[in-house]
């Protein structure tokens, strides 16, 4: 019977397949770039109005986290320091540093500094800082080595699966209460994190919620 399709059309299926593959890849990339929720955006490192370096303040000057984030132990929300907190020191130290101009302006005008938010839990998640830091979970576990960060970035994927990993096996992160705010702490005395964690878990009767109501209300 007569040929309906020219010879070249024999390759058509392969060509189509390749096109499909390319388009598919493009779509995936697009979704990945535009639609991934904030809380899994690891590496997000926005420019802050004031180039505040946690590295200098914590690692070099040895400030405690709680000096600025003063309510982290009592409240669900860990507050960002207000201008007054900055000025406590910077009214004497680095008075002329141009980088601190925004802080001084804020203090004079009373206009707050607008820090860019990095870590954001969705509105339907009720995360509570106090219960974590009071029960041997270090800042480090969720925020990474902030004390070493010149500029703060999103260190961990704050996805539900990630939360559950710890809630199902808290021993991987539990540490002595005294070391919660010591971001450089590592298991010592020849004991592994596991051993320490399991001991504390037993001793403190740690049983993190694994049901919806634990975080969603």
């Amino acid at each position, binding site marked *: *019977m007569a040929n*309906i*399709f020219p010879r070249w059309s024999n390759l058509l299926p392969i060509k189509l397949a390749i096109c499909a593959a390319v388009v598919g890849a493009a779509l995936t990339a697009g979704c990945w770039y535009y639609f991934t*929720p904030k809380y*899994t955006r690891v590496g997000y490192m926005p420019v802050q109005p004031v180039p505040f370096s946690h590295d200098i303040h914590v690692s070099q000057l040895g400030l405690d986290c709680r000096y600025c984030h003063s309510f982290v132990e009592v409240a669900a929300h860990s507050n960002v320091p207000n201008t007054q907190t900055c000025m406590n020191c910077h009214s004497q130290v680095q008075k002329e540093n141009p980088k601190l101009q925004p802080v001084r302006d804020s203090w004079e005008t009373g206009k707050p500094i607008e820090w860019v938010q990095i870590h954001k839990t969705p509105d339907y998640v009720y995360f509570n800082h106090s219960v974590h830091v009071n029960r041997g979970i270090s800042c480090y576990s969720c925020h990474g080595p902030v004390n070493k960060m010149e500029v703060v970035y999103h260190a961990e*994927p704050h*996805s*539900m*699966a*990630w939360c*559950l990993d710890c809630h199902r096996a808290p021993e991987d992160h539990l540490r002595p209460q005294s070391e919660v705010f010591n971001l450089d702490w590592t298991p010592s005395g020849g004991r592994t994190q596991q051993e320490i964690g399991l001991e504390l878990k037993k001793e403190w009767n740690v049983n993190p919620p694994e049901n919806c109501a634990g975080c969603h209300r």
Partner: protein
Amino acid sequence: MATGTSTFEQQKAEVTRVPLVTNNRSISWITQNISSIVEEKTPIWWWVAMMFTVPVALFGLFCVAYQISTGVGVWGENHPVGWAWDITNFVFWIGIGHAGTLISAILFLTRQKWRTSINRASEAMTLFAVCCAGIFPAIHVGRVWMAWFLAPIPNANAIWPNFRSPLLWDVFAVSTYFTVSVLFWYVGLVPDLATLRDRAKSKVTKFIYGIFALGWRGANRHWRHYEMAYLILAGISTPLVLSVHSVVSFDFATSVLPGWHATIFPPYFVAGAIFGGFAMVLTILLPARLLYPQLKDVITPQHIDKMCKIILLTGSIVGYAYAMEFFMAWYSANPYEIWVFLRNRVADPVVFGPLFNVPPAPYWWAYWAMIGCNVFAPQVFWSKKNRHNLILVFIIVNLVNAGMWFERFVIIVTSLHRDFLPSSWGMFHPTWAEIGLFVGTFGIFLTLFLLFMRFLPMVAMSEVKIVLPEADPHHHPEGPSHDKTTQVQH
């Protein structure tokens, strides 16, 4: 001698079967006349029909858009009636989409030759019905954009769907059913597509049919593979005929609600589905026969007769199920069950209400409409005369279509609207949005079917040819007529 011959003629007439294709048409006639439906110039009535069905379909789609953008509240559903027309229509259409697979798979495996002339159309009908059915569960949810939660895919939330939920089984059952039906239908189409390709005049049609014919050349190997594939697919889809509607029925059977919570549901739903499915096949084929007279030789009174018998059988099964439900409610001595059947459904103002000394049930009319259409109406098919009176058949099958819709409405709404706590009892009133959507699905269904009639062979030519006398290796074209002539010569 003459007398002798006459008795011989009579005996011969008695032993020869009524042929499946009348006026012993030849193979070429089949090809010619079936293909011509597709090839000849588009008839006026087709355009007229489309002018009706397309706007209706579009309005249905508008109702969908409105509901999704505004909220489920645009329907009449409320507390306590959380499901109403949406799921009613879903089950209704899924039921219709049942005959197709039954005819193509089960009748094929049981070597029912008469299926060949109707299976193509009924399979197409199945697909279109399932399309319509699919709309409802998809959009009845409050947040359709979150419906992907139903898919068991790994996700950042580390949550899986709830595999205990019959609604999830539904998702799997219906999608499987649809996929297999499509494959089955398409595989069956391939040889006919090739025929159309070869007969096509214009290059474009040749090209298009060519693509879908997958290079079919009718070679021996092709036929061998084709028949194997067809057999396997028939084998796969046979259990689906039973599974789909059983699973749909689990939505209700596994609940705690009186009127839903019944073990009889799966068989009763399957029977009901076949019942409604065949009714819809006839609803569509009878007009088609009028529009294309050549079909009368292929879809013969014998076919219609057989389908009527099936409707009569399944209708009686359904009737038995209704009776049995009622009996179980009474036999269980469970006041809640008894309430639903007697006080929500059966008790009418005239006969049963007074008989049981109870007030009329709010939905007694729906219940008795169901009984009338599904149980009483098909009984006329006991007489052969009625089965051959096409007008009557057409009326009855349409009653059955209505009755099957009422059946689902009765099951869903009358059970929900007055359940355990009288404090939460309420009534359901449909709104224009859900009525429009329901009507719209008919528009969608008919539009698709009209397109199908126009562009694809309505009858499986290759299969019908197989059941022709010509296809029989022992067929003698000269047989009886030869004798006759010799006698005349004497």
